[in-house]
């Protein structure tokens, strides 16, 4: 009779309890893996953004208040030698949507000359940069947008033509030529096109409005970013156009907060879930230990060492936790992978895919919980006074 056999028999003895525990463990675990996936995805995106070293400069009052085009020159003048900043890219919100569709695409007009350098994570190849420079109507689009609309409309692929109608005055309808579908996670749901095209189209419509909503400053290193952030805001302080500069992660966090702080909620959910599974597992282990006190005493009486008994009880708890975790994690992972949620809306939901890290974290958490839940009963088993336990009735 091996120890492994004893453990399997133990799990099999009260099948109802084993099944109930595993299900009560698996369901919260399914939530945990989804919640932690979102958190991990966001950490990954933030890490990428932090590496990109972009500083966003917008009007202090709000993002909607425009800054004049000339702001770019003034920012560049802060570092004429190019030692601290690589390039500055002005952007203007277009908020285009496909005529007769409801969802607004995050579409922005960007300075054509500096866009490829400031957005190196768009990974434009030299040929694509040439196409972007040559064609005034060129546009690059995130994989999420391309997937969402590609199934319904033609044109959402490199070389294709698409039409977007702006949701902001004067509601221009423009045709774009797609030169690239961006695979970068942080750019899944964005659409960039050339700002000179927009300014020109404004002029045709009789409007002279070359202003920008935001300027993205690509910095050479983290120290320069921090220094420029201070200097830029100082430069424009007390001018008619006071600025507020934020690094890309802070800027994005502002939106995440405004959209209800889903990542914060998911972190809270993850904690709640760990509490629940710990209680469920702990409860089960306490119950089965109580019922088995005499049996464990018998094991001791016939010569099993105490540490073996300790090991048996603890392993049983770990086994339960592992089974529960697998039953929770596997279906959720398959579900999330087969229905990419990134088609839905903005960051951070759009970033939700299950990364191997999320799965690893979930399994590790489950094992820690299993270990913690088994520890107290196992310790009691270790200390068990054989004679007293045998004498106890019921």
């Amino acid at each position: 009779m091996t120890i492994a056999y004893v453990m399997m028999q133990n799990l099999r003895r009260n099948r109802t309890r084993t099944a109930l525990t595993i299900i009560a463990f698996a369901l919260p675990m399914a939530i945990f893996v989804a919640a932690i996936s979102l958190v991990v995805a966001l950490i990954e995106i933030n890490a990428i953004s932090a590496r990109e070293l972009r500083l966003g400069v917008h009007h202090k009052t709000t993002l909607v208040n425009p800054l004049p085009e000339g702001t770019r020159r003034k920012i560049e003048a802060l570092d004429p030698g190019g030692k601290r900043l690589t390039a500055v890219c002005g952007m203007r919100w277009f908020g285009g949507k496909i005529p007769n569709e409801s969802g607004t695409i995050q579409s922005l007009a960007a300075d054509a000359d500096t866009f490829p350098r400031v957005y190196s994570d768009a990974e434009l190849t030299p040929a694509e940069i040439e196409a972007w420079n040559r064609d005034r109507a060129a546009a690059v689009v995130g994989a999420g947008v391309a997937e969402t609309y590609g199934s319904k409309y033609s044109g959402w692929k490199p070389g294709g033509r698409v039409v977007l109608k702006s949701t902001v005055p004067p509601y221009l309808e423009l045709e774009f030529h797609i030169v690239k579908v961006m695979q970068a996670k942080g750019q899944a749901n964005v659409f960039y096109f050339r700002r000179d095209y927009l300014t020109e189209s404004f002029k045709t419509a009789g409007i002279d409005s070359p202003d920008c909503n935001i300027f993205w400053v690509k910095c050479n290193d983290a120290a320069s970013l921090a220094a420029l952030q201070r200097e830029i805001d100082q430069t424009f302080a007390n001018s008619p156009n006071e600025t507020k500069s934020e690094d890309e992660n802070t800027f994005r966090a502002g939106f995440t907060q405004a959209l209800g702080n889903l990542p914060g909620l998911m972190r809270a959910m993850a904690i709640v879930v760990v509490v629940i599974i710990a209680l469920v597992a702990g409860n089960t282990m306490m119950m089965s230990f109580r019922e088995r006190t005499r049996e464990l005493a018998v094991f001791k009486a016939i010569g099993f060492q105490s540490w073996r008994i300790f090991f048996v009880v603890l392993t049983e708890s770990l086994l339960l936790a592992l089974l529960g975790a697998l039953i929770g994690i596997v279906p959720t992972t398959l579900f999330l992978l087969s229905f990419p949620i990134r088609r839905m809306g903005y960051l951070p939901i759009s970033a939700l895919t299950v990364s191997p890290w999320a799965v690893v974290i979930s399994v590790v958490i489950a094992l820690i919980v299993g270990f913690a839940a088994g520890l107290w009963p196992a310790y009691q088993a270790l200390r068990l006074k054989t004679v007293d336990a045998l004498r106890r009735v019921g």
Partner: protein
Amino acid sequence: MALPLSYNWRNLFVRKTTTLLTCLVIATVVGVFTWLVGFAGALNRSLSYANDAHKLIVLKQGATSETNSAILPEDYNKLSQVQDVAVNPKTGEPLRSPEMIVQVSLPRRRDNGTTFANVAVRGVTDAAFGVHRNVKLLGKGFSSGSMEVIVGEQAAKQFGGVQIGDTINLGYSGNRGYKVVGYFSANGGPMETEIWGPLTTLMNSYNRNMYSSVNVLLNDKADPDKVAKFVQGPSVDLNAQTEPAYWYDQSKNIRIYLGIVGGLVSIMCVAAIFAIANTMYATVAGRTREFAMLRTIGFSKNQILLSVVIEAVFLALLGGAMGCIACEAWLVLAGNTKDMFGATTFTTMAFEIKLTPYMVVGALLLVAGVAVLGALPPAVRASRVHVIDALREP
């Protein structure tokens, strides 16, 4: 005679650890559940006060919200063709309110101004106070033509720098100081998160000659849908929606958010069913002889079944009460304020999460239901105890 309730109540304290652990599982689930219900309730309450079906919100064709709509004065004049507009009983003027929406970025008080929220600033004329029937001045209003604003109650509560006596910087370049002179309520509706000021002064400050939207109050005999159709027709050619329809669109993203959280919470509720079943199975298994004895002294099968279910309901109510208390404590300690962007307004809607007695009763009823579901299978087993065999057991 049924089994006395004190029998069940005292049974819960025979196995203190198990009872406590199960209670904590239930408390955690109920705590999260009541928070979610409180959130959904706050949102619905807010939207139900923006539910004047006789109010039309007129936007430019192609605009998705008041924020990105631009109505030229000649467009506004076309609205004089609209029939069935209510009139101001004092002046006899039709209740048509041209309005301009801009925004200001304000620090959130709940995190001491670390993060900022975009708050709508609405330029209005006297007509607005007739059209928006739920808006009430609390104290002093602004004088038209002045650089004064009044602030919605909820905005004053949740954001910094907008209390009476403060000056907010507004305007195209954000350098026009507007003094806060009073507060207003909107009966809890989304307008309570807005700042109102005189239309003409604000339009000057922003160098604008266009309105954002026109709000029209129809008289009681009017058919709002028919009037909206007319506005959309060729002679006016503007987009018109009733207020409930408008807010239904703008709260779409919040409803998706609530849907995600609701889905997760219902999974947790199912897990709680299994946790309760597990505990009750263990309780029943440990009391086989007791049930047999009860059968011998004349209690029927159904009475024992009922007794086990009642015991589970006690357990669940105990946990549920703990959960409700924990949720209320959380709201008191961590703050109950929350704000979220509308779907396309780019301005925030602030509300306060509150637990009402109805919500607490609802949560307790739900958890009682969960307990019944979880306890039924073990209760059936208890009621089917084989009397003679069970009594003979050691």
